[in-house]
């Protein structure tokens, strides 16, 4: 049996485990760490799928930037108060769980169904990527076909920055408390 596949399954199980622990850990900090783990395993799976570059970005941006931001905020708010595990099971929640399991069933059903079939084959076979190098190809596409999204996304980042400033920055701090 193909070694790739075995690794895939291993990482898959671990990713799912990480996800579940995000779902089930009580302390936000643990959750965050579990999420980092999940991202790691996903990155590994990306490698298996032949996209080392994306895997790297995944680690850098997600695990590196985003999750750090999460942890930073958690620490900042020092949410030591561990969320009591009673999830307050209300009827809607139960319904929700049932429903999401339903979604899962439907999705698996579709993905494994015979009718499901991939779209037309593209030009970028793993071999080509291997010889031309993923970074070069991506760069090329990014600055030709995707130049507009690339430019526009900057506006998005700009908005995000402004937003952070507007919302989080303290105007007129309350007396007797230095801004953190």
């Amino acid at each position: 049996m193909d070694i790739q596949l075995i690794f895939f399954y291993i990482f898959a199980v671990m990713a799912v485990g990480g996800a579940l622990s995000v779902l089930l850990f009580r302390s936000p900090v643990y959750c965050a760490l579990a999420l980092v783990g999940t991202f790691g395993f996903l990155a590994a799976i990306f490698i298996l799928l032949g996209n080392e570059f994306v895997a790297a970005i995944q680690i850098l941006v997600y695990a590196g930037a985003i999750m750090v931001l999460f942890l930073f905020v958690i620490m900042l708010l020092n949410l030591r108060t561990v969320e009591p595990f009673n999830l307050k099971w209300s009827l809607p929640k139960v319904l929700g769980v049932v429903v999401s399991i339903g979604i899962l069933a439907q999705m698996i059903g579709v993905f494994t169904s015979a009718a499901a079939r991939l779209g037309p084959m593209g030009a970028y076979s793993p071999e080509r990527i291997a010889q031309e190098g993923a970074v070069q190809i991506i760069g090329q596409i990014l600055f030709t076909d995707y130049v507009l999204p690339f430019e526009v996304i900057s506006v998005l980042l700009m908005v995000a920055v402004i937003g952070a400033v507007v919302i989080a920055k303290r105007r007129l701090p309350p007396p007797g408390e230095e801004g953190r």
Partner: protein
Amino acid sequence: MSDYLWLIPALPLAGFLLNGLLGRPLGKVFTSLVGPGAIGAAFVLSLLAFLQMLDAPHQTLTQHAYDWIAAGPFHVSVGFTVDRLSGLYILIVTGVGFLIHLYSVGYMGDEEEYAYWRFFSYLNLFVFFMLLLVLGSSLLLLFVGWEGVGLCSYLLIGYYFKRDSAAKAAKKAFVVNRIGDFGYIVATLLIFTTFGTLDIATVTGTAASKLAVGGPLVTGITLLVFLACTGKSAQLPLYVWLPDAMEGPTPVSALIHAATMVTAGLYVVARLSALFVLAPTTMAVIAIVGAATAFFAATMGMAQNDIKRVLAYSTVSQLGYMFMAMGVGAFMVGIFHVMTHAFFKALLFLCSGSVIHAMHHEQDMQKMGGLIKKMPITGWTYIIGSLAISGFPLVFAGFYSKDAILWESFASPIGGTWLWVVGAVTAVLTAFYMFRSVGLTFFGKSRVDPHIEHHVHESPWTMTVPLMVLGGLAIVGGWVGIPHLLGGPVHLPNVLEHYFDGFFATIPAAAAEHYPESTEWLLMAVTTIGALAGMYFAYQLFSRYLAKAAQWRDAVRPVYELLAHKYWIDELYEAVIIKPIRWFSETVLWKIVDVRLIDGLVNGVAASARNLGGALRLTQNGIIENYAVGIAVGAVLIFWWLLF
């Protein structure tokens, strides 16, 4: 002259307007002149018209005033007709009307509170409508008058509007009449659909050709018309309003509820005789109803103590007589009695009015007595009237007309013995209760309240003159209809018969078997003697032996109560008809159907929408998770729809 027929009703109308608009500012003298004046003038014109009519072609004058209603085939014009029937009627109406107006000047002279001018304007208006009724050449125009007189009687009965009894009586009169009018309206609808017109001449002219004898259609029409008549002319079962109508001022009772309006029913029947003769069933019904009314009313009359009520019931009873005549096809005789009755009943009412006037509006006969000395003219005229109505032989008007009726009820092809018997008994009863009232009022020792005793005196000339004139008429009025049996030997013609010769339709099966004169003599003798006995007996009993009268009354207490309470008919109607209807309307229709069902439904819809909102609101509990659940549920449903 016929171009000016419209003036006859127009004059009273003008009088009404003048009195109504200017009566208050210009005062009593003005009113006293305008009111009777207008009617007097109308009487003169009527007389002229009458005379011209007599030698007009077909003895008919007609005038087309203008087109009233025109819609498609339906077309009614305002036109007036004076023929032998209406000619006689307008004379009665304006003539008697004039006398009564004159009388009212005195009678209502001291009227302050309720406005003298109102009274006269109403009275004039009444005469206007009555003339319209009589002269109208279309059934619909006739109906206008018909309803108009109803309105006026409503207004005049309610003249003393402060009295609740008066107000109620007025409403009762109008409503009961309306029940009859319903019949009239439907009848006209049927007539229009049958004849395509409502012009009386055309209808009566073509009736025989368009309607099958005894057919359902003609029977229906005539029965409906008769229903109207029972309302207007106070026959069973709709007579109940007339006794209460005595709440009105006495001249009103005299004019409207004795002489003119109440005979409108007979006028209509006579007018449409051509239709009625085609409907034997209806004729039988009319005869029976008439006889029954005559009898019942008479019995009730015996137990009344209010002088005017006695007269009221006698009116009902006499009207019954007239219908009996109509019912047996003796239209002429019926009209004859209408005329004589107009004279003597108006006379009686006016006399009673004069008494009441003198007695300061005391109407209870038990508080009277011996008045003949104090007010001779009134007294004697009253006695004349009583003799006339009781049919004192040979002299008085009533005798001839009533006797004619009785004879016809026996001899006519429709009539029969039983009819005659009822009539005869009624005649005796009539004589009895009339002279009961005479005795109680004018003879015996005075029972008058001492406080007012010394005020009692004879009435002014404006009142006594009409009394005397009418007294005269009450005597000579009958001489126009002397039966051949009596007139033959001394060559006195039966003027009326000659006058109406061939005017009224006759029953198709007119092969009336001929009775020997002896029978006629016999019947006449029996009734006459009975009547005389009744008169004498009653007179004696109620002028001299009151105590004995009381004893006998107590002996038959239940019967007396029954009569005194008019067989509890009013209470019966109240309980059986009025109450249930009101209950149904109030409880079922309004409170349940309207409020509960329909509105309940309407508001229910609105409420349920609001409640639904309230329920859905609960999903909006502000917790993010639930909203997420909502999204997820929606997603699942959509997938499910799309995939499977």
